[in-house]
């Protein structure tokens, strides 16, 4: 009887040890998971998911601190890919975070109206706006992700979103 | 002037699925003739029954699925399925065997998966395997080949019809008198009784290469198969790999212990190896699709067939081997995509 209890206890202790093991090793696993999630995100860096960019959102997803339906630029396809990777239920993108765009857009600066305040340059998450203070600015269309972050800071409302030109 | 603007290419070779299937049917003719010569006219009745069932069930399935009836009935795929099932059954098998087997093949193995071109399993082999596991007794009642010394009684066409449709032999005959186990079945029972290969081979059912009579049927099948190769309807990879998959292990074991294992020639001519290699495994829909994949697929069928024949519970294993490798085909296809031009190996 006592022997039986001892054997069971010993094995249970072993099991507990293996259950604790993943916690020790989870950091490496988490970094890999974040990378995998990040690879699925559209990299608009728009922050509509309420995080500061795609990578931060990926980190939050990996830690279970965010839901998979928070990325409007990625739309349903990104959501489905995330659901498959994270083994969560698919659900439509929450309109709370923004509308899923129908066509890809890029920012366009009405250059004559630009006063060269450089505010948009500071907020562009991918350095796609060039120009210097007091000089007019231009969006490098090929590098613009269409995040729309440059629109609110513009004091003269000279930035608008235009459909991205068809790329060869 | 207003002309039609179809897309390129404008040059198309005159070819059709119907033509391909017709050629396969022609290629089966030598085997059928030899079969009838040695085993009597039962096969013809079985084929007619099977083809009628196949066309009827195919029409039913097409009707239910709202598919164009004539286009798919005339492609000939259902006819081939029925012919292959009939070729696998004993010539005197009761009519409901071929009918139920063919109906099962067409409805469950073919149309349930989306009809022609989409079935992952070879319909004929599904039909046959279902019959084999369900009615093993009926499937062992093979006729003795029509060769002096083997066949003791002669069956007329009337006798054949009566047997097939009533399931009973004419009163003057008994099953023991008309049937004889196939060479592979004989081999299996005799070896199980502890006889050596030499003693087994002394049995009158065996000929120079394989079973008497059966050698000729297999030879005729091979001729038809080679004609299909020459007509470029099938490719060499599957038949060659399949036959090698049987012959190589057979050769190795024969070399080690000729007393207990029959040689490769016997294995190739004794059972359904030829039919399997040239007509069953080469069904393109359920076979692997790249050159390398076909080699793996064919070799897999050969080896599994040999394993089942030698150590398994059934005398022949082609049907099961084909179905097992059918299940593996999508996986094989996934890993045998050829290197594309301009891509690193």
């Amino acid at each position, binding site marked *: 009887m006592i*022997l*039986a209890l001892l*054997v*069971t206890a010993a*094995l*249970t202790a*072993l*099991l507990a040890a*293996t*259950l604790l*093991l*993943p916690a020790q*090793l*989870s950091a*490496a*696993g988490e970094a*890999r*998971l974040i990378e995998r999630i990040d690879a699925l995100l559209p990299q608009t860096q728009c922050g509509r998911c309420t995080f500061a960019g795609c990578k931060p959102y990926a980190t939050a997803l990996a830690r279970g601190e965010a839901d998979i339906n928070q990325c409007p630029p990625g739309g349903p396809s990104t959501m*489905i*890919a995330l*659901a*498959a*990777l*994270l*083994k969560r*239920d*698919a659900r439509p993108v929450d309109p709370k975070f923004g509308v899923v765009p129908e066509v890809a857009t890029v920012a366009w600066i009405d250059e004559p109206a630009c006063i060269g305040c450089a505010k948009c340059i500071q907020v562009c998450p991918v350095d796609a706006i060039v120009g210097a203070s007091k000089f007019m600015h231009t969006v490098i269309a090929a590098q613009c992700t269409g995040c729309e972050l440059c629109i609110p800071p513009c004091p003269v409302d000279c930035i608008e979103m235009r459909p991205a030109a068809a790329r060869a | 002037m207003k002309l039609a603007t179809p897309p390129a290419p404008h040059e198309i070779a005159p070819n059709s699925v119907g033509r391909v299937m017709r050629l396969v049917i022609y290629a089966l003719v030598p085997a059928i003739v030899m079969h009838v010569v040695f085993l009597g006219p039962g096969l013809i009745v079985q084929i007619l029954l099977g083809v009628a069932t196949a066309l009827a069930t195919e029409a039913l399935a097409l009707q*239910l*699925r709202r598919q164009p009836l004539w286009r798919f009935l005339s492609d000939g795929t259902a006819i081939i399925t029925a012919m292959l099932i009939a070729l696998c059954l004993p010539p005197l098998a009761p009519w409901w065997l071929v009918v139920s087997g063919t109906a099962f093949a067409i409805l*469950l193995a073919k*149309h*349930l*998966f*989306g009809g022609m071109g*989409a079935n*992952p*399993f070879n319909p004929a082999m*599904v039909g046959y*395997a*279902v019959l084999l*596991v369900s009615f093993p007794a009926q499937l062992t009642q093979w006729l003795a080949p029509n060769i002096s010394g083997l066949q003791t009684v002669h069956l007329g066409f009337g006798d054949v019809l009566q047997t097939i449709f009533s399931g009973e032999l004419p009163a003057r005959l008994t099953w023991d008198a008309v049937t004889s186990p196939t060479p592979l079945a004989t081999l299996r029972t005799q070896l199980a009784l502890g006889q050596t290969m030499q003693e087994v081979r002394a049995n009158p059912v065996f000929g120079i290469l394989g079973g008497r009579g059966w050698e000729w049927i297999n030879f005729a099948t091979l001729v038809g198969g080679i004609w299909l190769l020459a007509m470029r309807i099938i490719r060499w990879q599957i038949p060659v790999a399949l036959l090698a998959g049987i012959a190589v292990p057979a050769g190795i074991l024969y070399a080690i212990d000729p007393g207990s294992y029959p040689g490769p020639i016997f294995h190739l001519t004794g059972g359904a190896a030829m039919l399997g290699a040239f007509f069953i495994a080469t069904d393109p829909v359920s076979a692997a699709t790249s050159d390398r994949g076909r080699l793996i697929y064919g070799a897999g069928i050969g080896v*599994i067939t040999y394993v*089942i024949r030698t*150590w*398994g*519970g*059934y005398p022949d*294993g082609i049907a*099961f*081997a084909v*179905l*097992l490798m*059918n*299940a*593996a*085909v*999508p*996986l094989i*296809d*996934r890993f045998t995509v050829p290197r594309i031009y301009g891509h690193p190996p």
Partner: protein
Amino acid sequence: MSALLLILLSAVLVCYYAPTIPALNPFLAADHFDSAVGIAVASALTLIVVSPLSYLIEHALLAPRGLEQLRTLVFIIAVMAVAQLAGVAMRLSKRWMPVPTAFLLLMTSNSAVLGVAFLDTTRARTFSDSLLLGLGTGLAFALLLLMFTALQQRLRYANIPVMFRDTPAALVTVGLMALACMGFTGLIRE
């Protein structure tokens, strides 16, 4: 032999369906093959280790002390530990998709069922027997799971009659695979 294969096939079916049941969402199969590879590798690892381990527990730990009645309990604990370790190994490797935690539980129960089946239905008389058995079952399970997943992927674009889509077609597929496995009847006389 064919009985064992049938048990394996049912385990495959459970594995295939488990991740889709909560969602019942066909989109989930999007990268199913990659996750299936992860699950197959992890399960194979578990089975390969579990078989000799259970032999050792039985013959080195329980039998000498007359504790055979504890076999099932101890065995399940051991399987859980091994499955955990396999999950950790997957997480650390760079090649395979990590197996989600919920799935480890499923893997554990699968392995436990299979393992108990070995213990009862086969008499692994020596340690090397149990090693071989574990290796064979692990590889067979992985192969069957991948075969089934690839088959399902091929069927995804087939024009299957509406009432047979998804689950019915998958069940028929498994049925036909089982039919093919019947060919191995009598291969190992038990």
